[in-house]
């Protein structure tokens, strides 16, 4: 939507780390809320045409979020995020693991570190993800690939609608 916003995505296959940096055209409080409140997360984390549904979320150290990514055919992919540390509007860390619908986790998960900072009315978010296995990192894609082509078309339509306003 705003092409001048910084976006950086790098993968280190050897250390099994993913680094993502993105700038947002909004203040720190809004961006922090968008990353830490269930009703907001559900609006953006699932690339369309997939949808996200948070079953429960308790954003506090030791708390967790249990949610599903839902494909257009209704197939659900459940995940559990446990919050390891929280410094309000600055940083939070979580442990992510895929589960079944009954919260039984996969053997391998990933650790996520989110950092937030604001400058000149823009907020920058740095995310680093450590995956316990590279297969797991790549398996994240499996649930997404089918929806991807459609999702890009969807996004184009949405942007057209917005810019026509």
């Amino acid at each position, binding site marked *: 939507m705003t092409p001048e916003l910084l976006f950086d995505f790098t993968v280190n296959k050897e250390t099994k780390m993913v680094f993502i940096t993105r700038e*947002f055209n*909004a203040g720190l409080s809004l961006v922090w809320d968008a990353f830490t409140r269930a009703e907001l997360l559900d609006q953006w984390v699932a690339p369309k045409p997939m949808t996200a549904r948070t079953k429960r979320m308790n954003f506090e150290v030791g708390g967790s979020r249990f949610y599903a990514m839902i494909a257009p055919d209704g197939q659900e992919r459940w995940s559990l995020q446990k919050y390891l540390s929280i410094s309000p509007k600055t940083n939070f860390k979580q442990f992510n693991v895929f589960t079944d619908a009954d919260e039984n986790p996969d053997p391998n998960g990933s650790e996520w570190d989110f950092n937030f900072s604001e400058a000149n009315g823009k907020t920058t978010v740095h995310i680093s993800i450590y995956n316990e296995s590279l297969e797991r990192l790549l398996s994240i*894609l499996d649930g997404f690939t089918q929806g991807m082509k459609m999702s890009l078309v969807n996004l184009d339509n949405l942007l057209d609608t917005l810019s026509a306003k």
Partner: protein
Amino acid sequence: MRRDIFQAIADPTRRAIITLIALQAMTPNAIADNFQTTRQSVSKHLRILTECELVKPQQQGREIYYTLEIEKMKEVDKWLDQFRQIWETRFNQLDIVLANMSAATAKNVSSPANKKQKK
């Protein structure tokens, strides 16, 4: 058991073998000379890499030379690129969510369509 390219690159020794033979085709003995490990262990890694179709053995005279299948390596990058696209899509969606939030804050009055109570 079906093997795929991601299994091939999940092991540090196999990544080192890939890096070695990316430069030139090599025999198993020449490859093993570069590692502290046994010839059998290198053979095992070469077998896995061959099963993943990342390397190809080629008979030249009495020796077998292993070459890297560059096209297959590109699959990894293609997959990672899709991962990048997912994040791009997500963040573009988040831009819209943030724009709506900013607009709602600016208005400071909840519209009839906005069912959520502002705290």
